[in-house]
């Protein structure tokens, strides 16, 4: 059993290596094959023809952050949901009630965000 455990992660590690090696290999191979004649125009930022004006690191709309916050909350809450789901059979009715309360609270949170116009994109 522990062997399976170890081996599985070994495999994952191997896949990681492969996943890194492929692009590196390909790109180095490309370096030998492809031409390399840089010039000014090539190195400029592309802005549909017109010359790039001021820095493009524009300040994002705040709504991006708001969604990020929501994501953090809801995504992490699943941390409780998954274990519960896995052992649901053993837990019985009480767990159901508990989790329904939990989900209702989550829903209230969602409704709150909804009402406060956080979910409005435009």
């Amino acid at each position, binding site marked *: 059993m522990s062997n399976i455990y170890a081996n599985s992660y070994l495999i994952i590690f191997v896949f990681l290596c492969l996943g890194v090696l492929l692009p590196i290999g390909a790109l180095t191979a490309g370096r030998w094959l492809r031409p390399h004649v840089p010039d000014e125009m090539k190195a400029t930022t592309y802005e549909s023809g017109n010359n790039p004006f001021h820095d493009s690191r524009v300040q994002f709309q*705040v709504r991006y*952050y708001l969604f990020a*916050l929501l994501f953090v*909350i809801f995504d992490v*809450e699943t941390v409780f949901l998954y*274990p519960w789901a896995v052992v649901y059979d053993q837990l019985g009715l009480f767990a159901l009630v508990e989790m329904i309360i939990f989900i209702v609270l989550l829903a209230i949170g969602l409704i709150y965000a909804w009402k406060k116009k956080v979910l409005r994109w435009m």
Partner: protein
Amino acid sequence: MTLSAYLALALILFCIGLYGALTKRNTVIVLICIELMLNAVNINFVAFAKYGAHPGVRGHVFALFAIAVAAAEAAVGLAALIAFYRSRKTVQVDEANSLKH
């Protein structure tokens, strides 16, 4: 001996986080450092739960709760930071000095 290795790692992480949290000026970095500390805690819990004197699942549970709470704190922290940025147009802690010391 695996345990002490994990503990050492956690301790190092924690100290880095603490150092950063106490010295850095940029609030985002400070918040990240706090997360770092909390993750050090999680490593501790999980390590103890697996290799500790009394192995058991409690450590994992505690880690789960720690993660959730950390997320909540991070969310509130970012929200506070955004509000602060809106009113002050900066994210530097040491510029948060309108309240006299």
